[in-house]
């Protein structure tokens, strides 16, 4: 126990001084975040009419510590995915900074893996070749062996030679999971990865992800509109306001004991309390978001 504390403490203390100069912004002096968004604003300009603007997120500051599982919940269309794309480096924010382990992010976030909401597998590659893809891009030689191992780990040992269209939705998600995790990223970004799955498959996958996460303790930024899912899986839940110009409304530490079973944890009194507390904040935003969507339509 003492040994772990010792090994966990000093590196951060050592690492802090050289980067301290760059990390003078308030609130980030404590351990270097795996992923830090500071004052991020994203404004989209319509391609045809320059005057039409839409600010998806405004002045969002959030941190994910190494090994921490953070969920972002919010009403639909509030810019949750935008935040994730900013963290991934796929989208450059209009204002604000992104830091990855203390370094400013330029271009694609090389230390992050991304699980998309929609189909992201290359349809012309078999499941195995899809899992191998990232390793191939890096030029690793034992890509095949690693891919086989990960396919087995996500329970697709015998399905490596299938093409995505020959797999069920759940199997495709598991292939995506293996594709992301085989690269051993330090940060895992997940954009409602299980929203398209039926409830049973979904709970199985959630437990699987928690198990894999517990073994490796990566930083996870998890986007979802499902509050139950967010509470069951996370260490911390951040509530985003309704768009446009969405921003964090509240932050809740989820102190439910681990390991958790996503189905069983839902009936514990503490879960119900947390759910009520977060829902009180979220409810108004959901209604606001709904009213705005109705207005547009």
């Amino acid at each position, binding site marked *: 126990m003492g040994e772990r504390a010792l090994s966990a403490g000093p590196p951060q203390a050592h690492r802090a001084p050289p980067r301290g100069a760059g990390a003078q912004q308030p609130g980030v002096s404590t351990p270097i975040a795996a992923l830090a968004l500071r004052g991020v604003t994203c404004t989209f300009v319509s391609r045809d009419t320059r005057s039409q603007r839409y600010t998806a997120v405004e002045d969002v500051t959030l941190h994910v510590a190494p090994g921490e599982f953070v969920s972002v919940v919010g009403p639909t269309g509030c810019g949750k995915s935008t935040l994730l*794309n900013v963290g991934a480096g796929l989208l450059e924010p209009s204002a604000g900074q992104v830091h990855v382990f203390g370094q400013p992010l330029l271009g*694609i*976030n*090389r230390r992050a893996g991304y699980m*998309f909401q929609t189909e992201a*597998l290359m349809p012309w590659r078999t499941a195995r070749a899809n899992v191998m893809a990232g390793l191939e*891009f890096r030029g690793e030689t034992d890509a095949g062996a690693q891919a086989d191992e990960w396919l087995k780990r996500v329970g697709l040992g015998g399905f490596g030679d299938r093409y995505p269209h020959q797999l069920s939705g759940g199997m495709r998600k598991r292939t995506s999971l293996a594709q992301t995790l085989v*690269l051993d990223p330090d940060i895992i970004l997940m954009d409602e990865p299980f929203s398209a799955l039926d409830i049973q498959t979904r709970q199985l996958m959630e437990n699987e992800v928690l198990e894999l996460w517990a073994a490796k303790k990566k930083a996870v930024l998890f986007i979802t509109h499902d509050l139950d899912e967010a509470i069951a899986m996370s260490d911390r839940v951040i509530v985003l306001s309704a768009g446009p110009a969405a921003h964090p409304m509240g932050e809740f530490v989820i102190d439910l004991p681990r390991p958790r079973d996503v189905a069983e944890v839902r009936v514990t009194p503490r879960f119900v309390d947390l759910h009520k507390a977060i829902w009180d904040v979220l409810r108004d935003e959901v209604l606001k978001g709904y009213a705005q969507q109705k207005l547009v339509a």
Partner: protein
Amino acid sequence: MWSVIRPSQKTLRLWQVMVLVAVFVFWYAMTTPGLIPPLMFENDRQAAFFFGEPIKIFARVWTWFITERDIYQHLWVTLLETVLAFAAGTIGGLILGMWLALSPVAGAIFDPYIKALNSMPRVILAPIFAVWFGLGIASKVALGFTLVFFIVFFNVYQGVKEVSPTVLASARMLGASRNQLLRHVYLPSATSWVFSSLHTSVGLAFVGAVVGEYLGSSRGVGYLILQAEGSFDINTVMAGILVLTAFALVLDWAVGRVETHLMKWQPRAGETEKL
């Protein structure tokens, strides 16, 4: 008796053959001099003069392939022209299509010219190509190229534009460099579109070769037809058309085989999981 040969899935081939036989029997009956009284013409030899006689046509094909064996060199030339035009057109269309699709500035500049060239009736270029490239293989390949190129070009352009943004973002997150994106994402997506137009483009390469030969050449099946027309030898013309049709069917079948082999990652309608 009828219950046995009634059209169904099993007797499909039989019925298809019967249609073919019926066409030839009708043709034979209408054209053979003196078999039935002339219906359309004053003279009973005129039908044979205009439409040819099936027996003589088959005799012609027989001498070409079996006794004289002189059609192989012509077939070979036509096949070579088709394959070269197809290959050149596909590669050209692939490269230019990828380039214009991935470089918005170049795409915007060349867009009106590509459209203009595509709407031009390109068969009219055949005589010009004959002047430029001579009466040999090159002018036919050039004509086939202009026909194939645009089919492939537009399909590649579409294929690159329609790459799923999620797949693209995913590949970038997996660490693909620009070259790797080109090779592992854009190219497979574009080729899937090219293969979907494979039947059309091979067919057009074939049309280009034959039309080119017909307009001026010294070898090839189109040349044989042109020669026979010069001497009003309708039977040889018809024999040439039959050979070309059979040849086109063989090409189409070969393309189908290649297609099923290369496109096995694409779902087919109604396909179920094989367990």
